[in-house]
């Protein structure tokens, strides 16, 4: 009897002991990869950049700067500058989890693979994401971001530190990318044109110096930036489902009537002349047809319009670079008229009509430059940065408030999940660079 018990126990013991063989190694996912080469992920970073530039953040910026009106349901609230932390959840998530975290992964992989060019391209895109985030939100996680094991609760670095970090990242990126073209990385997300990483990076440096108010450096970098309109960094769009222009998707397919012209926004008024421009431009009449639909109820989403399904969306453009150069020069006593009038000539060539050159100077010239930038970059976050930096020089304030929004609110997801959350800032409190 006892023999049987002991042998039974022994057998069970043996079986159990050898049984980790039975269950080991099965918990490896056969449906998903657990690793990826770096260059494959760069495209995702690109999509995050594109989304930041033309999706919800861009729509907020366009409404806050009165380029368009918010006309239905939640968008009516935004029109009145009423937003909550929850409204910024998915944008923040897209930037950090879908963009910055992926860029850091690409950089790691690129270092492993010894691909300096790829590393540089990832750094440039990552810098763009950080730069815009700092410009929009103020103090944001930077040095501790993207490392959930060491920094599960990233602390928030000051806006200045982040912008400095962005400049350093861009410089290093420039060193690594050499003269490579954007299309080299087969990113697919960006339009295939003459854009080079180095020029894009210089334009970005100019942009972030401008935001920080460092006009001499902005001028220097702008001159090294995108040198022709075929060198833009643009998000590529076609009529294929999932590849259409984001504004088109929003206005035509998803939320018709939310983003329109119901309150006669400033962009419309400047372009149709009901509000006189600082620099008279008859050619605006031609531009009007491209920007807005026939009965002037909403932006133009038909073929050929600014938000047609296949309209590429500029992320960093020659126009922006030249206008940065012009404004920086105007503020530092350099030659502002040359770059500014280059832009005017280009607009005339593009739209037809008359875009007379400017011969102004001083504050008038600066106003004209910023006004042109406002009108030539529809849906651009840069316009929002400009208005905050210049104390609303174009008078975009609408409604009954006394100030335009000065930032994006920190998102609810950070409030809930980040132990080092520094506290919610009021929408109308300027970010440090603008204080």
């Amino acid at each position, binding site marked *: 009897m006892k023999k*049987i018990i002991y042998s039974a*126990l022994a057998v069970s013991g043996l079986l*159990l002991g050898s049984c980790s063989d039975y269950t080991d190694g099965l918990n490896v996912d056969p449906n998903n990869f657990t690793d990826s080469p770096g260059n494959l992920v760069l495209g995702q970073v690109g999509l995050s950049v594109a989304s930041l530039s033309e999706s919800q953040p861009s729509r907020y910026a366009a409404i806050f700067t009165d380029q368009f009106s918010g006309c239905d349901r939640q968008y009516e609230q935004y029109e009145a500058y009423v937003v909550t932390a929850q409204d910024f959840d998915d944008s923040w998530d897209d930037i950090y989890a879908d963009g910055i975290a992926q860029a850091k992964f690409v950089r790691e992989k690129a270092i492993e693979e010894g691909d300096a060019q790829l590393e540089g391209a990832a750094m440039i895109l990552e810098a763009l994401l950080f730069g815009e985030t700092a410009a929009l939100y103020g103090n944001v996680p930077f040095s501790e*971001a993207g490392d959930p094991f060491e920094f599960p609760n990233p602390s928030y670095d000051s806006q200045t530190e982040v912008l400095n970090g962005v400049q350093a990242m861009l410089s290093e990126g420039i060193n690594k990318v050499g003269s490579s073209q954007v299309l080299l990385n087969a990113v697919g997300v960006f339009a295939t044109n003459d854009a080079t990483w180095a020029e894009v990076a210089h334009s970005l440096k100019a942009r972030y110096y401008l935001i920080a108010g460092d006009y001499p450096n902005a001028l220097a970098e702008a001159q090294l930036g995108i040198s022709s309109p075929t060198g833009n960094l643009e998000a590529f769009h076609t009529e294929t489902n*999932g590849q259409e222009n984001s504004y088109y998707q929003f206005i035509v397919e998803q939320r018709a009537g939310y983003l329109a012209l119901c309150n006669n926004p400033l962009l419309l008024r400047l372009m149709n002349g009901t509000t006189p421009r600082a620099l008279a431009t008859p050619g605006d009449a031609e531009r009007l047809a491209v920007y807005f639909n026939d009965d002037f109820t909403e932006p133009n989403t038909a073929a050929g319009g600014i938000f047609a399904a296949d309209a590429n969306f500029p992320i960093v453009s020659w126009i922006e670079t030249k206008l940065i150069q012009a404004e920086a020069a105007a503020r530092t006593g350099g030659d502002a008229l040359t770059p500014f009038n280059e832009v005017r000539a280009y607009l005339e060539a593009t739209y037809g009509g008359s875009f007379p050159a400017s011969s102004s100077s001083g504050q008038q010239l600066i106003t004209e430059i910023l006004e042109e930038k406002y009108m030539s970059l529809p849906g651009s976050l840069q316009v929002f940065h400009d208005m905050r930096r210049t104390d609303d020089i174009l008078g975009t304030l609408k409604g009954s408030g006394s100030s335009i929004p000065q930032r994006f609110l920190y998102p609810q997801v950070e409030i809930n999940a980040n132990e080092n959350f520094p506290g919610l800032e009021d929408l109308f409190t300027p970010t440090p660079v603008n204080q």
Partner: protein
Amino acid sequence: MKTKLNGFLALLLVLVAQISFAQTKTITGTVTDQDALPLPGASVLVKGTSNGTQTDFDGNYSIQASEGQVLVFSYVGQETQEITVGASSTINVQLLQSAQELGEVVLTALGLEKKKDEDLSSSTLVDTEALQKSGETGVIQGLAGKTSGIQITRNSGDPGAGAYIQIRGQNTITGSASPLIVLDGVAISNTSVGSGVGGVVQQSRLNDINPEDIESVTVLKGAAAAAVWGTGAANGVLVIKTKRGRGAGGSRMSVNVRSSVAFDEINVEWDKQDKFGQGLSGAWAEDFALSWGDKIADRPGGADVFDTSGEYFEADSGNLIYPITEKRSREVFNDVNRDQVFQTGVTLDNSVSIGFSGDNSNTLLSLSNLDQEGIIRGQSSYNRKTFRLNHEVNLTEKLTARINTNYSTIKSQRIQQGSNINGLYLGYLRTAPDFNNTDYKGTYYDANGVAFPNAHRAYRGSVGTIPVYNNPGWTINEQTNPNRVERFIINPEIQWQITDNMIFTGRYGLDYYTDVRETYFPANSSGIPDGNYARTEIAEKNSTWNFFLSSNYDLGEAFNLSWILGTQFEESDYHSIGGTSNNFTNPFLGDLRLFGNADAANELPFLFKQKTRKNGAYAVINAELFNQLFVELTGRYERPSTVEDNVFYPSASLGWAFSNIIPENNFLSFGKLRASYGEIGIEPQPYATRTTFGPGGVGSSWGDFLAAGTYGNPFTRSTTLGNPDLTIERIKEFEVGADFRFFNNYMTLGFTYYDRVTEDAILPLDLAPSSGFSNVLANAAEISNKGIEIDANVNIFNQGDFKWSVNANFSRNRNIVESLSGVQSVFLNGFTGASSRVVEGEPFGALWGGRLLRDAEGNLDLDANGFPQLDPEAGLIGDPNPDWRGGLGTTISWKGLTLSALFETFQGNEMWAGTKGVLNYFGISPETANETTAPTDLVNASGTVIPAGTTFRGNIGDFGAGPVALDQSWYLGLASGFASSHELYIEDASWTRLRELSLFYSLPTNMMESIGFRSAEIGVTGRNLVLWTDFEGVDPDLNLTGASKGRGLDYFTNPGTRSYLFTLRLGL
């Protein structure tokens, strides 16, 4: 003198010597049961020793005993007998059936039988006869209302629709919610794949089994009872045993035939108004979505005026349909449209089983065919054929082998339902009363005479090629959703009697099924102008090895010990492969269903694989002391493949049958107190330990998105962080209870209180996105279930030919989500608006949605017009869990007649009446068609004043600021089912129903003998005959989201049914 004494002493010595050295001899004999049939496996013990044996297949035994010793003959379910060994060496015994109900025997987790009086758990046995009399087509539905602690909710009344089973409460957020199903000692699959707010109603795999094959079902509700199964048993266990072959009536062979026909009809339906036509604000408008048009009775009458100059629709019926320029007709088509879609469903269910009891074996062969044409016309049906062969053979005196096999084949056609413009109820209910749905398909000719074949028309698109919502006729006839299941279950088992009281059992179980599903939308289905086809092939294989030793000792009269020691290997292999094809190149498919009929970019394959294994060793020790104290200890050591270490699950139970020490009396015949503690678990989902990479893409919550597939398929690292520390969810339960029998066993009462907590429940935890990840799956939640269960049975009358018994059960469960570690809520199922969620501190599955604005005291904060306003923040709006549930059944039999009834009730649960809200918006619900005259000036929701004396379409309401007009502006505004005012439509869904009512008649035996049958029984059963509920429009005992954990939402759920069943049983 001395000599006499010496002689006497010597004699005494010799006598004593003779007694002490009395020869043991071999006793043989046969043990039979009350029908004089041999009783195999009966236990024969020499009392007071550990000497025992069992009878063989012929009921024969052989044992060594000496004269004067007592042999104890016993068998589960029969009365024990004790016979003293006398001079004879042959002792034949007949053991009669136990006077108590057969419900005395329950199955343990390993599928072994145990006397209920000795059972220390809260397990209950379901009366199989009642299960089969209920006539339900599936095992799961047949369980409803029969025992405490179990909740069965059907997905819908569609043929073949599955159901969810909830034992006690919900224990997990991300894990499986199904209880473990053990069939003949082996776990089988009860997977239900694909339940959402739209699509088709899915089946449940447990319903593949023929209910006629089942001998007993035991529900193990507590953790202690199920602890030997470890992970997987967290939601309770249903232990099912299938029949073994046996002869009957003195013959070795028995044939049983059962044939039934059932008629199903809808039990609760939505009413549609028939007073106002299609249109808005009192004016008729063709193709308009809503029915807020003109008053039909005010129309001139006669035929409509058509525009025959341009486009028209030529229906397949030959009718020519033109655009209407003036709507004059007063015809309403609610009945015509209903008859287009619904019918009385007919179900034919035939089964035959042959049992044979041979010298060394017994065999059961059983076949069945269930054919169900449901309540919906068109492509809606369910056919199930099953074949079972159970064979048990005595290979040698000590070796028994058994093999049970089951093959089920299912063919079914399903109808699209729910929140789905291609669904049945959505298009059907929203159709305006003055629109005739009969002609739904034909050829459309445009203004230039160009023909567009295969055109589809409905009330939102009466002359055109494709309407906004499907015509119900198109949904049921043109769209097809076939499904084919082939299932094989094989359970061989070997039992080896190693010694007299040690048995080795080895089992293997194989459960393999393939499930092929297709959905086909022809071109011009709403929203799918160019057609869509998808096919999924699922295959799941579960295989189990289970070996255990069991032994039983009688150590003296007062101590009995038995133990089981075993080991188990389980493997589950699941894969699903298929593809979708969108935008057909050639739209005229006919019966063809294939890939290759679309652009490469529109054909997407998918593949999903999953394989897990589990290895465990377990031990069970049972001790019985002094005939009244029972102790059970179990332990299971397990290693699941989804977790990095071994896991241990203990349980301990204690029981005291105190009635064994009190003197016999007429009041308390049996009483037992029991307490137990047990731990079981749920394994984490596989493959969650590593962060994955896959195609990316970025989109905003507003719907615009940039897809990876169009941009060269860039990969992204998942924003869900892999968690290598993921471990099992552990459930700890403490249970106390009592079982009583009163009045000489005429009344039984069982009572249980349980307190269960799930620790380390897994949920997705939010991470700060600036860390680079959005969430991580972590063991971070805690869920509790506390409740009581009461089961009672009273034999009110049991005299001669007349018997009357009543049974009742009561359950109450509090299922609270104790902690979510800071996460506010987790979505289970539902919509962006109204959903069923897990919310910290609230009942599981709480309903969440938009709320009305309230002030600090909780009163409605009304606007200037006296109407409620919307609270900008969504929150909790209801609780779908019942406060208590109960069942009350009664059986009356007299001679051959048996009448039984079962009432069931659910009280205190709430449901979101989404359909009602939307039908209010569409102006379809009768409530919106009332014509009310304003007694004073009334304001409507837009602020317009309706002067006194005006008759308007709508009602008068009062939200606290005085009477207001509830007219079109109210029903299209805040009261619209699409508005974010979901709180408005939370309603009490408590119900009470007559679940079953049946009358059966067994023909008397003398009549039978003359015909040549052994037995015959005819009966009539009604299911779901009467429903008492305040919830309107649909049976609240259905669930839109099927067998998922989300509950309490009604949104165009397909209707439920009431049935009338006629059964004939014959025995040969």
